C-alpha cells in the first residue's frame, strides 16, 4: 500500500510539474479563467432588465448571478478539457502502449494527472475567482445551513469524479472508433443544455425536466449550485446525493470495463 501511495504521489507531483512547463500558457489560462463569469452576469442582468419580471422559474436576478458563480465553481471541478480526446489520441498514436507494458493503470494514472492539473491550475486561478466572488458577494443571501454546506462540498468532489469517469469512458470509446470528435461534439451539446451550465434546469419544460432529473449531466454543474442555493428540498437532498453517487459508481465501473475490453481488442496502432 505504501509503495502504491508513493507511485500515486510521484505521478501527482510530475503532473503538477508538467502543467508548469509552459509558463505563458499557464499564466494566461489561470488569470483569465474568470472571464466567462462576467459575460454571463452581464447577459442575465440584461435578460431580467428587458423582461420586467422579478423572478424566472423561482430565481431572482441575484439568484441567477449567484447560480452562475456557483456553476463556475462546479465546472472547475467537473470539466475535463482534453481528457477524452487525449485518451483517444493516445490510442490512435500508440502512446497507450505504455499502459500495457508498464505496471501502471491507465485510469488511475489519468485521474492523478487530472487532480494534479486542477490543483495547480485553480490554485493560481483562485485569486481572480475570489476577487469576482468578493465583488459579487451581495448577490448571495449568506451561507447555507451546515447540512447543505456539507452536501455542497461532497457534491463538488463527486462532480469531479463523475466528470472524470464519464469523459474517460468517452475517450476509451476510441478503442472501437479511433476518432471520437463527433461523439465528443454530441456529448458537449447535451452537456451544454442539460448540465445546467447555460441555464438553471428549472427552465426546462416537462417531460424534459423529469428526464434530465434522472440523468448524470445535471450533477456536473446544476446540482452543486442548487444545493448551495437550497433549491433542493431537504427531503430530497440525500436522495439526490445518493443518485449522484450511483452515477459516479456506474461510470467508474463502465470506464474500467471499457479499458479492459479495449486492451483486449487493441491492435497496436501507431507502430
Amino acid at each position, binding site marked *: 500500500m505504501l509503495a502504491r501511495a508513493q507511485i500515486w504521489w510521484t505521478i501527482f507531483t510530475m503532473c503538477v510539474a508538467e502543467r508548469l512547463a509552459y509558463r505563458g500558457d499557464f499564466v494566461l489560462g489561470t488569470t483569465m479563467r474568470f472571464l466567462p463569469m462576467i459575460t454571463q452576469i452581464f447577459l442575465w442582468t440584461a435578460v431580467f432588465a428587458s423582461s420586467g419580471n422579478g423572478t424566472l422559474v423561482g430565481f431572482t436576478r441575484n439568484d441567477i448571478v449567484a447560480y452562475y458563480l456557483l456553476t463556475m465553481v462546479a465546472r472547475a471541478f467537473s470539466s475535463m478539457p482534453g481528457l477524452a480526446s487525449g485518451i483517444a489520441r493516445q490510442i490512435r498514436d500508440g502512446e497507450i*502502449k505504455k499502459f500495457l*507494458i508498464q505496471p501502471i493503470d491507465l485510469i488511475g494514472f489519468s485521474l492523478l494527472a487530472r487532480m494534479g492539473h486542477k490543483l495547480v491550475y485553480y490554485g493560481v486561478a483562485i485569486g481572480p475567482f475570489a476577487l469576482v466572488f468578493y465583488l459579487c458577494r451581495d448577490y448571495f443571501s449568506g451561507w447555507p445551513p451546515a447540512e447543505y454546506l456539507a452536501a455542497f462540498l461532497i457534491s463538488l468532489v463527486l462532480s469531479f469524479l463523475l466528470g472524470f469517469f464519464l469523459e474517460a469512458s468517452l475517450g476509451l470509446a476510441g478503442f472501437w472508433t479511433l476518432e471520437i470528435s463527433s461523439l465528443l461534439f454530441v456529448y458537449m451539446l447535451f452537456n451544454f443544455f442539460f448540465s445546467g451550465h447555460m441555464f438553471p434546469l428549472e427552465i426546462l419544460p416537462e417531460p424534459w425536466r423529469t428526464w434530465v432529473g434522472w440523468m448524470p449531466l445535471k450533477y456536473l454543474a446544476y446540482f452543486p449550485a442548487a444545493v448551495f442555493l437550497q433549491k433542493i428540498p431537504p427531503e430530497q437532498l440525500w436522495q439526490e446525493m445518493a443518485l449522484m453517487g450511483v452515477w459516479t459508481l456506474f461510470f467508474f465501473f463502465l470506464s474500467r470495463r471499457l479499458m479492459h475490453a479495449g486492451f483486449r481488442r487493441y491492435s497496436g496502432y501507431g*507502430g
Partner: protein
Amino acid sequence: MSVIEIRGLRKSYRVYQKKEGLLASFSGLFHREYREVNAVKGIDLTVEKGEFVAFLGPNGAGKTTTLKLLSGVITPTSGEAKVLGYVPWERDNDYRRRFALVMGQKNQLWWDLPAQESFQLHQKIYRIDPAAFKQTKDELVDLLGVSKLLGQPVRELSLGERMKMELIAALLHSPEVLFLDEPTIGLDVVAQHNIQKFLKHYQQVRGITILLTSHYMKDIAALCKRVVIIAGGEIVHDGSLEGVIDRFSDYKILTVDFADDRMPSDLARFGEIREIAPPRAKIEVDRSQIANVLTNVLANYSILDVSVEDPPLEEVIASLFALTEKQQNESKDSNIAATAANVAAASKN
C-alpha cells in the same frame, strides 16, 4: 525452462481497403471492403536465457507484431506463448516488472519534463530499491554518456539522445528480457555505433535475453549470433548469420586479377559477369561449380591474384525477401484464381 516459448502463434488483422478517389470515400460511408491480413502465421520459437536474437525480415513481415505479442501489447488470434513463464497478454504486473520494450520513442518519457523526472517515476512504478536505482542509473548514464542531458526537457533532445534516454528508462529496473524494435532507426552512424556498443556490453555483463528487430545488417552482425528471419508472417530461417548465406545463396563471387591487360572474352561461360574493370573481373559462380571454375581459370589464364567470397549479406537477404514476396503473391493469385473457378463452377451448377 526456456525464457521464451512460442507455439503456433498467429495474429490476423481485419484491414479496411479504401479505393482511390472521392467517390470511393463517399461510398465508404455505406459499404466498406475489408481484407484479412495474416501478420503472424503460426510461428514456433524457443529462446534460452542470455541469448541475443535478431528478428530480420522485410517490411510487413511480422517482426514488430511478434514483439507486440510477446510484450502483451496485443492479443493473438490463436496460439500460445510464454515469456519467463507468463502469458504476456494477461499482463500480470509481476511479468511487466521483469521485461522491457523499446519501440520507437515517446513511449516512456514525459515529453515536457527532463528525463531524470521520468526515471524517478520508473523507480516508483517498478519498486526499485533506491540504492540499486542510483547505481543502475549512474552506470547507464555513464555508459551512454548523457549525464549533461538529464536536466533538459526531453522535447529538446536530439533523436539519438532521446533513444539513449529511452534505453536507460527501459533498463532501470534491470529487466530479464528486453524487446528492442529497431533501436537505431533514424540515427546517424556515430549514434548507431554507440548504441550497438552499449547493447553488446550490457548484454554480456548482465546476461539478459534480448530480442532485437532491425533492418541494419551492421546492428545484427555486431550484436547477434542467432538470426531469425521472418517473411510473410512465417519463420524462414533460424540460425547463424553465416548460415543465412550458406542456405540461401547459391553462388559465390570469384574475383580474378589477370596478369595482362587483355581481358579474356569467354568469361561468361563460368557464370554471370558481375563487373569488369581491367585487369580485374568479378564473376558470380554457382556454388557447386566453384572448384571446377577455379581450377579452369588457374590452368588456362595468367593470373596475378584470385579470391573467392560469399555475396554480401544484404544481397542474400534482399533476394530472399524478394523471393518470399513473389511466392506470397503467386499463392494469393492462385487462391484468387481458385476462388474465381469455384464461383464459376457453382454458378454453372
